[in-house]
C-alpha cells in the first residue's frame, strides 16, 4: 500500500479543525485502517489527549520534527499519517512543505497527499480557500465545511460559498455535521474517542456510564460523518482491498 499523508488545517482558529482530525482518526479506526497522527499544537496537543497511543506532538518549524513525519512515511508499517496543523498555521505549513519538497514528492507519486481544509461560514474562512489553492495541485484537496458548533445552519450563505468553491478546480467538499453541544462537551470531558463514547467505554476500556441520549447523538453524528467521508475518492482508495490502486482519483 502506498503511503498516504493527510493534512488537516485551517487558517482560522475555532472552526473545528481538531474535531475533524479526531473524527477522521475515529473513522479510520472503525474501518480498521491503521493510522498514526502528529499534533502540531505544541506543547499542549489536543489531538494527543484523545489519541495518546498513536499521536506525537511535534513542532513543524523544527527540522528534526519534520523528519519524524516525512522521513518515516515510506518506512513506517502504518501507512496512513494524519497531521493536525496548529490553528492559524495552514498557509505557513504548506509553504514549509512546498519549500522542503514534500508537495513535489507527492505530485511525482511518492505518496498520496490529501488536505482537509476546515472552513467555517465567515468570509475570512472562505478567502483562505483562494490562498491555499496555489499549493493544492496534485493533492486531494477537500474543503470540510464545519457545522459542528453552529447553532444556526443558515449562517452559511450558500450562494457565497458556491462562488468561492467554484473558483477551485480540484476541490472536493464534505460537511462536518452539527453535533449536539452537550454531547460534544461530554465526549470532551471524558477525554475518549467518539467511538468509545458511543460504546460506553472509558479511555482505558472499562465500562462507562455515559448518557444514552448523548451517546445516541454521537452515534447518529458518526453515521452521518461516515457517509460524508465515504464520498471521498481518497477514502474509497484507502478502503479498497487492492494494495496498488490507492492512488488519487481520475488518473490515466
Amino acid at each position, binding site marked *: 500500500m502506498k503511503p498516504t499523508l493527510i493534512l488537516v488545517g485551517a487558517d482560522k482558529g475555532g472552526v473545528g479543525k481538531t474535531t475533524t482530525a479526531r473524527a477522521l482518526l475515529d473513522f479510520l479506526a472503525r474501518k480498521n485502517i491503521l493510522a498514526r497522527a502528529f499534533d502540531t499544537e505544541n506543547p499542549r496537543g489536543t489531538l494527543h489527549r484523545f489519541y495518546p497511543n498513536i499521536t506525537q506532538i511535534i513542532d513543524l518549524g523544527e527540522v528534526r520534527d519534520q523528519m519524524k513525519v516525512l522521513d518515516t512515511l515510506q518506512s513506517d508499517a502504518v501507512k496512513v499519517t494524519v497531521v493536525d496543523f496548529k490553528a492559524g498555521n495552514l498557509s505557513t505549513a504548506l509553504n514549509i512543505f512546498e519549500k522542503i519538497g514534500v508537495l513535489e514528492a507527492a505530485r511525482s507519486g511518492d505518496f498520496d497527499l490529501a488536505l482537509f481544509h476546515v472552513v467555517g461560514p465567515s468570509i475570512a474562512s472562505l478567502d483562505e480557500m483562494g490562498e491555499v489553492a496555489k499549493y493544492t495541485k496534485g493533492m486531494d484537496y477537500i474543503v470540510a465545511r464545519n457545522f459542528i458548533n453552529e447553532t444556526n445552519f443558515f449562517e452559511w450563505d450558500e450562494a457565497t460559498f458556491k462562488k468561492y468553491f467554484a473558483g477551485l478546480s480540484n476541490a472536493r467538499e464534505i460537511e462536518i455535521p452539527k453535533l449536539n453541544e452537550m454531547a460534544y462537551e461530554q465526549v470532551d470531558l471524558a477525554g475518549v474517542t467518539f467511538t468509545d463514547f458511543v460504546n460506553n467505554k472509558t479511555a482505558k476500556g472499562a465500562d462507562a456510564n455515559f448518557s444514552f441520549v*448523548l451517546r445516541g447523538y454521537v452515534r447518529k453524528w458518526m453515521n452521518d460523518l461516515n457517509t460524508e467521508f465515504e464520498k471521498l475518492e481518497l477514502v474509497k482508495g484507502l478502503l479498497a482491498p487492492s494494495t496498488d490502486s490507492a492512488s488519487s482519483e481520475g488518473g490515466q
Partner: protein
Amino acid sequence: MANTLTIVCSNKPRNGKTLLARMIADRLSLTGADSFRIFDTDFPEGGLAGYFPESSEIVDLAKTQGQVRIFDTILAETGVDYIIDLQSDLLDAFFRIFSDIGFEHAAREAGLNLSVYFILDRAMTTMQSARRIGEMLHESDFVLVRNEAVGNVLTLPEAARIRAQIKNARDLSMPALSIEAANFIEKPEFTFAGFVARNGEGAPLEMRIELWNFLEAVYNQRGRAAEGAVLL
C-alpha cells in the same frame, strides 16, 4: 409483567391529549400498578402534572438536559410504568430524537412495552403527521385516536386513503362528552380512578351514566387490543 411506556401525542394542541393521558394514568392506578411516573413536556406550566403532582415531572424537552432526563431515566430506572405527555409543538423534534438515538429498540431491550397514542383532529395535516410518526415506529403499539369531540378526519377520502397506508396502527375512538361532563372531569380533584373506586359517587346520576359509558367505551377498546399484546 413487563412495564409500559405510553406516549400520548398529537400534532395540535387542545385535541384531548391530556384527557387521554389522564385516563391512561388512572387505568394504571386501577389495575394496581405500584407506581407510575409521568413526564409532562408542557414546560413550564404543565398540564397533566396538575392532576398527578406526586408522580409527575415537568421537563423542558427543547433542552438536551430535558431529553437526557426523560430518555435516560426511563432506560435506567426500570420496574416502573411511564407516561409521556408530549406537547404538540415538540412532536416532530421528539420523534426525530427518539429515532436518531435508537430509543425504541433500547426501550424494548430494557423490557418495556411501548405504546404511542396519536390523537387525530379534523384536518388533513393530522393524517400526514400521523403517517410520519408511524414510519418511525417499528416495535411500538401505534394507536390512532379519533376524538369525537374534535371531529373526524377519516370522513375525508384522502385521509381514509392515508389511514389505510399506515399498516402498523390500530384505531381507538373517544366518544364526545357533554359540556357538563367535560367541565366536571376538568376539575383538578377529579380522577377517573377515584370515580370508579367510589362507584361514581358525587356525580349527578345522568352524568354518572355518561361517564361510565365513556370510560367503558375507551377502556374496553384498550382492553381488547391489550390481549396477549403490548398493553396493560
